[in-house]
């Protein structure tokens, strides 16, 4: 980047890139705008200027029982993430710091379990859930989401852990640290950023998972994915309310993602980009 870029070129690129970014972002932007319209305005056709009313939000929060699916989404995404991390952290640690010739195959195998199409095993899972009483429970959904995301979590943690030089752990051992102290004073402080962004990504993946959550829940445990899916066909004047509900469903994750996007992207490269 040693060369100065001409201001004109930079201006042109800026305008071009902003234009593209706004197009990509437009569906979200327009949803936010529509959510701030009255139902009458929303039905009247395209307009970028809402009357900035929050009546649709009030309506959704009142009538549609939004809080319950919201609560369900929070429970299953956080619950499944914590369980997945508890299982995955030791595994990823072992693979990163005590690699064997088989490590790579194990990782590939783990990822390959994600290749198994959910639809392929839906039928038996549905019956297992039906017969064990897990159908339409938060516990059942949390279990499924843990299983579904575990390979990604292991892989991502592995990528982060591998960036921690083994030398440093050995230095701690030479300095007289026992396994426990090595973990607390050296490994954990260096691993925390990686664990944190893995946690974030998994919460996002779990929050947005929309096959198992739709298929294995009906009422009690239905999370936001199911709540939104119930808007699939028009119901009278509903656009503004639909938009408000959508914004409410994506806002927590959108904010979370915006704050952590740098680390998330790094983790998502799965070590393929140095």
């Amino acid at each position, binding site marked *: 980047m040693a060369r100065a870029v001409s201001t004109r070129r930079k201006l042109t690129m800026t305008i071009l890139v902003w234009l593209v970014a706004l197009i990509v972002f437009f569906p979200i932007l327009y949803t936010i705008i529509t959510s701030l319209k009255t139902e009458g305005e929303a039905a009247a056709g395209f307009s970028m200027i809402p009357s900035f009313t929050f009546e649709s939000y009030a309506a959704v929060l009142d009538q549609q029982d939004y809080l319950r699916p919201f609560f369900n989404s929070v429970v299953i995404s956080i619950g499944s993430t914590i369980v997945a991390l508890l299982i995955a952290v030791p595994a990823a640690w072992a693979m990163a710091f005590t690699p064997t010739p088989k490590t790579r195959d194990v990782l590939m195998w783990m990822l390959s379990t994600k290749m198994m199409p959910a639809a392929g095993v839906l039928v038996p899972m549905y019956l297992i859930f039906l017969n064990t009483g897990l159908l339409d429970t938060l516990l059942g959904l949390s279990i499924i989401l843990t299983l579904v995301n575990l390979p990604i979590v292991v892989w991502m943690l592995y990528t982060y852990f591998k960036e921690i030089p083994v030398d440093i752990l050995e230095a701690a051992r030479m300095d007289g640290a026992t396994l426990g102290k090595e973990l607390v004073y050296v490994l954990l402080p260096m691993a925390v950023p990686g664990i944190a962004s893995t946690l974030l990504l998994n919460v996002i993946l779990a929050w947005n998972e929309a096959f198992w959550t739709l298929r294995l829940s009906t009422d009690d445990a239905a999370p936001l994915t199911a709540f939104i899916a119930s808007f699939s066909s028009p119901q009278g004047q509903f656009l503004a309310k639909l938009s408000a509900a959508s914004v409410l469903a994506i806002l927590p994750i959108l904010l979370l*993602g915006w704050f952590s996007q740098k680390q998330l992207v790094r983790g998502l490269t799965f070590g393929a*980009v140095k």
Partner: protein
Amino acid sequence: MATKQSHRLARWMMAPSVFVLLIWMIVPLALTIWFAFQRYRLTNPNIKGFAGFANFEFFVTDPAFWPAIINTLLIVVGVLVITVGLGILLALMLDQPIWGQGIVRILMISPFFVMPPVAAVVWKHELMNPTWGVFAAVSRFFGQEPVNWLGNYPLLSIIVIVAWQWLPFATLILLTAMQSLSEEQKEAAEMDGANVFRRFWYIILPHLARAITVVILIQTIYLLGVYAEIQITTGGGPGFASTNLPFLIYNTGVLGGNIGAGAAGGLVAVVLANIVAIFLMRAVGRNLDA
């Protein structure tokens, strides 16, 4: 670190993950295979017993079968082509010095955080609706008849919606890869007299190879299972025009109550996924340094 003790410890630390995933892989698969050879109706407990290949025959001769296979593959390929192609283009643009880089990144990544049902309802009702949708408004502005996207081009519409969701992922990973290319290497190529296109072709693109494989691998895993978008936007129709394999299996097995045939369909999906997986793992095994 490589002492015997630590190796034994390592095995114990991996055990829970391996065990859980092994169960998760074997139990449902074994049951699927079992059901695929059974007569099993949710609605009629009197129908039971060994079915031979009848369930497979039922599933494969379903008029929706071939359309579903083709649609599944079209969705995977279509979305991959759009996201990787556009992703490279956008990454090249974002790699240039511009004002407001940070905000642009945030705008660009946002669709990745949108849950599929929201993406589906928003595109269906607010963008693609032929009466009050934004696209209709744009068509009218140019004096054209509004297009009924989901009615007339259902599969294309779904591909566009799904591609919109995955474009940020592809773009940002490719951008990260592009930014890791050393300035010196680009300059060396410039010194060697390579023009912009040659630099892209011989320097940047090979450098992106690993990132592209990651994008393809991860996306394929998810694209083979696209479901919510179809259920919400088109319901698989009109006819079978936008029915994919997951959708067909759910319709047959759970909605249609024919568990045996649904399981047979599941096995077909597993085989299809494995064909894709073998193909992918070959390519990726080389590129992903584990």
